[in-house]
């Protein structure tokens, strides 16, 4: 199969978008439900809970950025498709794995922390800063794999 390298690279790009996207969708969905519960009692909380709901959405964005870079590096966006060996394709696939796996898991877990944060804000609306800080700490473990995936994609020759 002459295009095996390209296929493997595209599988990597797809994994980055799909798994990180699933993590974000689950996380944002969960916080959305909690936010609706809080807003049904106090609509003035909208601004505070919106920030919490946005936080688990970043994983999907990170996965999307990595996939775009893979498409750029393989020439799929410009139309000048690179002639990749299967080893190079495999390298792209492996480079996408950190954000794919960690994006999925951190999105779900950040969603849980943010949903709990919404409950905290619903009860004590002066605690939104703490709730956002706690949910943001999970973000760190989405940023690290994003950076690794980003650097790895760029270093593949």
């Amino acid at each position, binding site marked *: 199969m002459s295009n095996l390298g390209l296929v493997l690279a595209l599988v990597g790009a797809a994994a980055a978008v799909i798994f990180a996207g699933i993590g974000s969708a689950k996380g944002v969905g*969960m*916080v959305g*439900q*909690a*936010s*609706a*519960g*809080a807003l*049904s*009692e*106090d609509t003035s909380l909208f601004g505070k809970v919106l920030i919490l709901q946005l936080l688990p959405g970043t994983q999907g964005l990170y996965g999307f950025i990595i996939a775009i870079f893979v498409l750029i590096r393989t020439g799929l966006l410009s139309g000048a498709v690179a002639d990749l060996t299967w080893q190079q394709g495999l390298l792209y696939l492996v480079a996408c794995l950190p954000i794919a796996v960690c994006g999925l898991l951190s999105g779900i877990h950040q969603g*849980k922390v943010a*949903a*709990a944060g*919404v*409950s*905290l804000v*619903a*009860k*004590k609306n002066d605690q939104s800063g703490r709730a956002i800080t706690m949910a943001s700490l999970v973000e760190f473990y989405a940023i690290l794999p994003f950076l690794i995936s980003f650097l790895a994609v760029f270093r593949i020759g």
Partner: protein
Amino acid sequence: MRETDYAYAVARIRANEGKLLTTAMLDELVAAPSFDRALALLRSHGWAEEGVTDVSALVAAQNERLWTLLQESVPDKEELQVLTSLNDFYNLKAALKCMLTNVDPAPYYVQPTMLDLGLLTDAMRRHAFEKLPPSLADCAREAYETATRTESGQSADVIIDAAALACLSKQADETESALQAKILRFICDSTNIKIAVRCARTGKDLSFTQSAVGPCCGFDRDGLCAAAVQGESALLGWLYATPYRDGVTALQRSTTAFEKWCDDSIVALCREAKYLFFGFEPIAAYYFAKSAEIKAVRIVLSAKLSGVPAETIRERVRDLYV
């Protein structure tokens, strides 16, 4: 049902937890110089509607608000069944007694209940017990047959109470929630203790005591029955060696003190749910917490109407969740 499916419900419940009366507010209420002043305080906390002065109406409105909130919040209303099963059995007792005395049972029904009360009344009038939910059908038939055979309402009550406790014990065994199981088992055990004490005080024999006491979770059922037959002091001595030692101290004071101890213990168990953000536990905990608050306010207002001194009221009011 996954724990995270309760995200909406828990957030809504947490928002309402912030509106629960605190111990300081309750103290203020107890110290109020008159019923009108107490009512004004409740209004300022958003507890009482303007113009409503009847204690029963206030309590009914709060109960209805609580039940509506829970029904609107939970992803599956059937799950609330566990909170109302005791009321279902109470309503069955009311329906049976009213049927036997040819009285309309509607004013005697208690809320909240998941049971279709119209269906209950109709099924009891027509003796169509099979139309009732399976948990009630058999005991309704047995209680009716016993009541008509013995012409004793007490025997029917014993059958229904024992079935209610068996139902609670089954629910405790089946639930996946450790906290819910703990609360249900506590209710089961404390109710059995109350029954055993009543049997001991009225000198009931072993056979009657065994038929009245339901399944026990925290101690040996046969041991409890045997101790009850030997008298109240033997029973209290036996209970002292069980996990319900603190309850014995309350029982030695009075039955009212034991009732208060039971309610306070349930609220103490519910406090564990303060640190949970998913699952049914925070919802169940809020139900028990709000019910305790409603009971406390009812006690305070009724006492204020009767001119009971603040010190006496303070001894009777329940601990609050907040």
